[in-house]
């Protein structure tokens, strides 16, 4: 059976509608759904048997995955290639740090503040960068990130250019840390790692769930239409900039949450680290490109590959980044759909099917789009 993607499911041949069903699922994805549930359960239970260092590694993987999903949503689906997402990581982190250190807020509330602040920042930011197109959009986002970094470096209460440490004991104030410590009989520091991990897991799942829901929704179809042909999308009443703006806002929110969580766990913040283009954009781009841009699975594969490479070669410093850069270039040139793209081409398997698939109907009929069709 052939799987055809349908660009406009509702307007196609009403006479045949009884025979055709539009679905985004296939058998492999049903099996995959079970697999995902199993992985999720194992993920939730992981702190019960994993060591602290493993939990910290998993925390790193999950937060990078969150950032990668956000960037993928922007670049892979909305056509917004940003190299300035560090603006939202850093801003979310700084607002979290200010809420905790200066405002005395509960850390979880502070994380939410971080996300909201990043989203608020994205509104004026969009005003500037949406005037730029393509590559100029990319560098424009970078300029914004630099401006935010330079401004926050002036904030003397948070250490100016050298940064500051969060008050000691912040981790212990996390709701549930004491509870976890009592229940599992572990020291508060370990209990904090467990809670950070669960928060990161929650955030990563939320990011994936959000991307999945969005792409399967009507808005998601609009996004695909905008990506494939902005002009045509406009002609059928989709405003590309509106959808893009919404995605930009949502990505900023989630990126800000991730930034806040990452720096809560690090417990030390500085402008250069929190707004690092290497850590929060270059790595994220490599994760998405290596795994496969424009798919939900890609960043998941990518983050695993990235983590393995990092553990094997991180000691080699700049050699490691050099090889990562070459790998990214090679994949972009020779396998632009990444590792997951290679895998799907061979097997047809999708874990998160978001492409519309036409199933059933008369097998003799083929949908053909010739020049006059």
């Amino acid at each position, binding site marked *: 059976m052939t799987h055809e993607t349908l660009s406009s499911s509702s307007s196609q041949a009403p006479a045949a509608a009884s025979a055709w069903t539009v679905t985004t699922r296939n058998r492999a994805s049903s099996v995959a759904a079970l697999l995902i549930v199993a992985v999720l359960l194992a993920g939730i239970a992981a702190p019960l048997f994993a060591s602290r260092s493993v939990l910290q590694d998993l925390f790193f993987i999950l937060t990078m995955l969150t950032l990668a999903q956000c960037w993928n949503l922007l670049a892979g689906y909305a056509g917004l290639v940003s190299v300035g997402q560090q603006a939202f990581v850093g801003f979310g982190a700084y607002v979290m740090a200010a809420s905790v250190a200066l405002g005395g807020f509960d850390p979880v509330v502070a994380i939410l503040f971080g996300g909201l602040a990043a989203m608020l920042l994205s509104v004026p930011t969009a005003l500037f960068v949406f005037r730029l197109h393509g590559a100029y959009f990319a560098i424009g986002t970078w300029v914004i990130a630099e401006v935010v970094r330079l401004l926050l470096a002036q904030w003397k209460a948070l250490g100016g250019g050298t940064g500051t440490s969060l008050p000691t004991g912040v981790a212990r104030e996390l709701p549930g840390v004491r509870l976890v410590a009592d229940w599992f009989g572990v020291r508060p520091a370990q209990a904090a790692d467990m809670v950070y991990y669960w928060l990161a897991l929650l955030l990563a799942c939320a990011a994936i769930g959000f991307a999945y829901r969005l792409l399967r929704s009507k808005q998601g179809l609009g996004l695909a239409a905008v990506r494939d042909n902005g002009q045509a999308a406009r002609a059928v009443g989709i405003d590309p900039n509106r959808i893009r703006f919404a995605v930009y806002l949502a990505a900023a929110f989630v990126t800000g949450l991730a930034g806040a969580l990452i720096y809560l766990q690090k417990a030390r913040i500085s402008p250069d680290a929190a707004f690092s283009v290497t850590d929060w954009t270059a790595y994220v781009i490599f994760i998405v490109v290596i795994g496969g841009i424009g798919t939900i699975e890609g960043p998941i594969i990518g983050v695993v590959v990235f983590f393995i490479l990092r553990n094997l070669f991180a000691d080699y410093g700049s050699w490691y980044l050099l090889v990562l850069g070459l790998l990214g270039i090679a994949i972009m040139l020779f396998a632009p759909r990444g590792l997951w793209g290679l895998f799907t081409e061979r097997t047809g398997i999708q874990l998160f099917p978001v492409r519309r698939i036409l199933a059933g109907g008369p097998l003799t009929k083929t949908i053909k*789009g*010739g*020049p*006059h069709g």
Partner: protein
Amino acid sequence: MALLETQGLTAFYGDFQALFGVDITLDAGETVAIIGANGAGKSTLMRSMSGMIANAAGQVRFEEREIGALPAPDVMALGIAMVPEGRKLFPSLSVEENLLIGRYGRATAGAWSLQTVYDLFPVLKERRNSPGTALSGGQQQMVAIGRALMSNPKVLLCDEISLGLAPVIIRDIYAAFPKIRAEGASIVIVEQDIGQALKVADRLYCMMEGRVTLSGTPASVGRDEIHAAYFGAHTA
């Protein structure tokens, strides 16, 4: 001996098969017209011969050499110049620059130079410093023809040069063809305006749905035959 010929030429336009085994020949010094309705495959044939699109099967031979696989710049360097459909002047270039760029890939000396092109179309000399796209449609067509002549080509391919132009302008442009022939170029004209084409052509091919349906000299083929070859027998 044929200067330019196609044998069994098959080509696709995207997924759409536009040519089904087309055979045509052009002898040295000859002017050949290819006529046919919209979508008959005439322009695809021209694009195949000029190297703009790759042919799927068959051959294009120029001076006994297979050129079907060559890209457009290589074909042009051998001496096949094209006046593309829609004129396609470069908007960033002035009239004179549009003419000069015609010899970028083949600066062969010959009858045609800036001076002789201006002699052929005197109005272009007056507008030499205007942006090419500021001219009227007819004048733009003159620039496009002059641009192709600047390389002193052996073969001049003219794709739909009367499209969208007023009859009086078309007559002016076709008035240049005897001079172009006299300087030695062999010419292929693709036209929907059959009347003009037959006036200058030594031979004609009529195409329909990607195939040659009729060939001969203007004197030897009748109006009804052309009509049938053009629109299909069932409408004749």
